[in-house]
């Protein structure tokens, strides 16, 4: 279980949530002044999810934001000016004006992958980052978000299924904000708790109150530990509400007013402020100090963004290909010899743990049958991960089916030169 947060960490959570909100409020004003050239998407009311989950990661871990996760970018070390300039399409933005909104990242320092607008596609990509991190011995965890609507995509399924079969150290935060553009979640997913989707992949699924930043933080911290211990991936559903339309142009008249009122009473920042006060973690002076710091930082960065130039037109023609502008170098945290022959050599066979059929003992099958399609009242869905990593052998297992394949190149000279004959049947040593 996680260690309790320090007082400073409690302040951090407030700082980032309030920074997230104030930054977006300023951007609404900029939008109305026609200073934001494209769309503006609000995360009002969802700040606790971005902040709580991103704050549970270490600097070495990787994340990929979706459109309503500006807060997570702030936690990861990006500055408000990055967000302002992205939206205002300025040359000083992280993408030099080539893309907008939260569509930027940093491979080297902040370990952040830029999203694309198509929902679900980050899930396989971040699974790949997790797999590569494990391969390189970096012991990292990767995390991204998806909405209730985005969980209906094929990429969601393909990505989570691959992550599950690979036992990848990957966390998916499913932000159930009740609305996929104008369509309510009930028409997107026939489940009460979307964490129930985890059952289909044999992974851990949990539902948390997304408007409770501490609950999101704790759930994510647990998930990080589980992933680091090699028992990932984890799906966390965070229940929340999108308090604005899909984007600025959308007044969201399709949402019942009473629903807004219901959720406004559960605002994550108001709730967290009350928590800090009730637990005597801060006082009015401290709050005023943090708020003043936020105003100061936003003033400075907004000024920077507004005074920044637009990009030169010729930039449009540049950068389609990497022509030596980037050095590509993997950061190895384990000896390369472990993954190179002869140490990497294995007997290329499958270990089949069960011959299948209805009589076969399938751990967890009972839970699946009783789960009522995930519509159970309990907010937590726990399915023990049972998929073993590919090709892992269990000593003393019962029947094994050995399939003799993997003879290698047929060209005799090539075989001789590469010494395949020597290593072909070499069993991989234990690490």
């Amino acid at each position, binding site marked *: 279980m996680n260690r309790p947060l320090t007082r400073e960490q409690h302040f951090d959570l407030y700082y980032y949530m309030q920074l997230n909100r104030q930054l977006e409020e300023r951007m609404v004003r900029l939008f109305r002044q026609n200073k934001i050239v494209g769309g503006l998407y609000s995360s009002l009311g969802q700040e606790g999810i971005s902040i709580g989950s991103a704050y549970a990661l270490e600097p070495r871990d990787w994340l990929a934001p979706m459109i309503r996760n500006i807060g997570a970018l702030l936690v990861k070390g990006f500055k408000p000016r990055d967000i302002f300039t992205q939206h205002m399409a300025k040359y000083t933005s992280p993408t030099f004006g080539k*893309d907008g909104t939260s*569509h930027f*990242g940093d*491979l080297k320092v902040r370990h952040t*992958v*830029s999203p*694309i607008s*198509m929902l679900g*596609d980050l899930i*396989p*990509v971040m*699974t*790949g*980052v*997790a*797999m*590569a991190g494990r*391969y*390189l011995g*970096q012991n990292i965890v990767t995390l991204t978000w998806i909405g209730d609507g985005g969980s209906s995509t094929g*990429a969601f399924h*393909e*990505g989570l299924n*691959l992550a599950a079969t*690979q036992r990848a150290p990957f966390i998916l935060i499913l932000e159930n904000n009740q609305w996929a553009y104008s369509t309510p979640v009930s028409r997107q997913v026939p489940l009460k708790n979307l964490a129930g989707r985890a059952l289909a992949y044999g992974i851990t699924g949990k539902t948390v109150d997304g408007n409770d930043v501490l609950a999101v933080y704790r759930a994510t911290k647990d998930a990080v530990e589980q992933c680091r211990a090699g028992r990932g991936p984890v799906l966390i559903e965070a229940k929340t509400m999108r308090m604005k339309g899909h984007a600025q142009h959308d007044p969201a008249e399709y949402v019942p007013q009473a629903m807004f009122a219901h959720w406004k009473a559960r605002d994550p920042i108001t709730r967290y402020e009350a928590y800090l006060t009730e637990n005597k973690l801060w006082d009015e002076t401290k709050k005023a100090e943090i708020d003043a710091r936020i105003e100061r930082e936003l003033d400075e960065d907004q000024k920077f963004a507004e005074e920044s130039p637009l990009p030169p037109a010729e930039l449009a023609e540049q*950068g*389609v*290909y*990497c*022509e*030596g*502008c*980037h050095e*590509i170098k*993997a*950061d190895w945290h384990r000896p390369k010899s472990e*993954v*190179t*022959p002869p140490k*990497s*050599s*294995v007997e*290329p066979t499958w270990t089949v743990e069960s011959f299948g059929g209805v009589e076969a003992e399938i751990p967890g099958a009972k839970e699946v049958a009783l789960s009522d399609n995930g519509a159970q009242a309990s907010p937590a869905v726990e399915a023990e991960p049972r998929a073993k*990593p*590919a*090709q*892992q052998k269990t000593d003393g297992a019962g029947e094994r089916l050995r*399939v003799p*394949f*993997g*003879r*290698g*190149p047929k*060209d005799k*000279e*090539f075989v001789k*030169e*590469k010494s*395949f004959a020597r*290593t072909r049947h070499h069993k991989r040593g234990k690490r």
Partner: protein
Amino acid sequence: MAEITMLEGIRQALFEEMDRDPAVVALGEDIGVFGGAFKVTEGLLARFGPERVIDTPISETAIVGAACGMSYLGLRPVAEMQFIDFIACCFNQVTNFLAKSHYRWGAPVPLVLRGPSGGSVHGGPFHSANPEMYFVHTPGLKVVYPSTAYDAKGLLKSAIRDNNPVLFFEHKFLYRRIKEEIPSGDYTVPIGKAVIRRQGNDLTIISYAAAAHTSLEAAEQLGREGIDAEVMDLRTLLPLDRESILASLKKTNKLLIVHEDTRTGGIAGEIAAIVCEGAFEDLDGPILRVTALDTPVPYSPPLEHRFLPNAEKIVAAARALAKY
């Protein structure tokens, strides 16, 4: 020097690159224990182990997406499409994620997406496709389509060492049908360079992949009729070797383009535009093309025969062109 098939050339490139650089990993459906549907990856798992040779679920979007994620950490994944037709299943990952990554946010995607393509094997509408032009139309990708064992090996090595996403098409009709002697040492073939397979003076036939062999066959027949055709093999479709195309046209002044891809929107149209823009004054006749029909690839042998370009059709078009 040993005589090897194109399939063997591809396999040797994979083995040698994985030997050379532990950042190179392979993933795809049935590529490990089974060695791939066409046995291209046979032996890889035995030598490099399951961390580097990954059998995946049937999930093209997950395969390509995961390969992209791996490349962000500096790996150089080689992802296999069991048949290149299935690349349609991950079109979004390829065209939106991989292709735009470097332009949008400066993140290079050094990966190779390879797979068996093309017809003449009675594979029917979903196992015979030539979907290269969807991707030639996508800035940010490179598209390679070799026709010989030497080129396949050298180009695959270049593709693996390239810092950009490279789509590597392997014509399955050529896998085991062509053989040639290749040097034993390490060599590469540059991406983006066409090659002249047969020198000629009367007209230029531009082609690639299996159709390059058909074009050579036609050129031999034309030679016996007194028409001296030059045959160019493009090898790379994106970036296209504009200079070589214009140079050959300026020499022969007549151009015939042959491809197994369907007609409308095929690379022939692009080449014709390049020639009209860059060497219109040098043209002594219309630019002609011999291509597959604008239909899906049909299954039954007489239908597929009608669908595909062949030496007969090329000879007929070349005769007409030579008269100008």
